[in-house]
């Protein structure tokens, strides 16, 4: 008994002391959040390079980057007054919400001039699986691009993937077979004619 406890305080303490049950999903989410935070803290000069490495980087995106550079040049020359037209956003996902509460889009660092990929923590339960990967339109459905790692010996599988803002289709590759995420809305993948899960990623 602790020095300053009497019988009633002892009973109160014992009433409040039982530990909650083990929750491997919550622990996996912690690990995913840690990985996501680590992933979304790039050095400033790597932000644009990271963006250019994204699969969604295109000629149009390059044109936008060039336009942004030109705009900065005009501003520095005092030509701001002639540039009143707003710049079109790269992705129009304002107000979008993650389709799956367990696949939470985490805002990236503040980079208002550049839209870039957002680290998204992923968790998936598959106790008997030997290998799990997430595949989707954001990684060209490449089963080797984003393998998940198991949390502990029997815990959920986790990974953090970088995804551009917008609506995406994805699935899990479990021991070589495609499995949709049971906790996310499903949609028909028009390219392949099979069901896939839907992931909405907000603009940072």
């Amino acid at each position, binding site marked *: 008994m*602790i020095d*300053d*406890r*009497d019988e*009633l*305080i002892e*009973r*109160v*303490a*014992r*009433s*409040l*002391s*039982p*530990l*909650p*049950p*083990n*929750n491997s999903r*919550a*622990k996996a*989410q*912690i*690990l995913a*959040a*840690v990985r996501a*935070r*680590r992933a979304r803290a790039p050095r400033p000069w790597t932000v644009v390079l990271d963006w250019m490495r994204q699969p969604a980087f295109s000629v149009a995106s390059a044109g936008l980057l060039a336009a942004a550079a030109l705009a900065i040049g005009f501003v520095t020359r005092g030509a701001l007054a002639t540039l009143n037209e707003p710049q079109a956003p790269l992705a129009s996902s304002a107000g979008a919400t993650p389709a799956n509460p367990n696949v939470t889009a985490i805002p990236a660092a503040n980079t208002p001039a550049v839209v870039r990929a957002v680290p998204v923590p992923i968790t998936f339960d598959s106790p008997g699986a030997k290998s799990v990967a997430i595949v989707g339109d954001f990684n060209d459905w490449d089963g080797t691009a984003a393998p998940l790692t198991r*949390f*502990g010996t029997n815990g959920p599988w986790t990974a953090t993937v970088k995804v551009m803002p917008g609506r995406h289709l994805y699935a899990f590759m479990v021991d070589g077979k495609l499995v949709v995420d049971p906790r996310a809305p499903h949609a028909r993948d028009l390219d392949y004619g099979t069901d896939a899960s839907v992931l909405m990623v907000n603009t940072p």
Partner: protein
Amino acid sequence: MNEIDPSVPLRAKRGEEKAFIEIVDFYYPRCLRFARNMLSNDQDAEEAVQDAFVRVHHSFPRFREDARFDPWLFRILANRCRTLLSRGRRHRALIEYGEVPITAAAPEEEYGADWAEEVRVVLDTLPAEQREAFLLRHVEDLSYEDIAALTGVRLSALRMRVKRACDTLRARLTEVEQHDR
């Protein structure tokens, strides 16, 4: 008191993810218990614990190698709980809306479900700083010195907070017991 092997936080500080997973495995139940008792709401408690572990990981470079890990972790967690309490979100929602009691079944078997609920109701009426001091001392079994270090409060003030919490709990719960007889 049950503490983790001191080499584990040091390995985590050096960036070893396996060591960080060991820390989460070891401390998650205790952290969640403290957060639930502080916040009386499962969702807030889980948010506080997740935030705390993310901050622990982020702050490892500032963790002194000669320091004990428990007080450092609980300082971060207590700060997260205070932040959520100050927002006043969902506090006491669990009791008010009659959801499943957040304590495990054991105390209810021992003392009855009514007792467990009364304890929680009275605990919720305590000022947050008294509740925090009481829980750290009597449920988490931290020493007054550790609590003083993690809260930044003087020992004498801390003892007074715990004493006032105990006095309130005694008075209210004795009243409840007499009423039930």
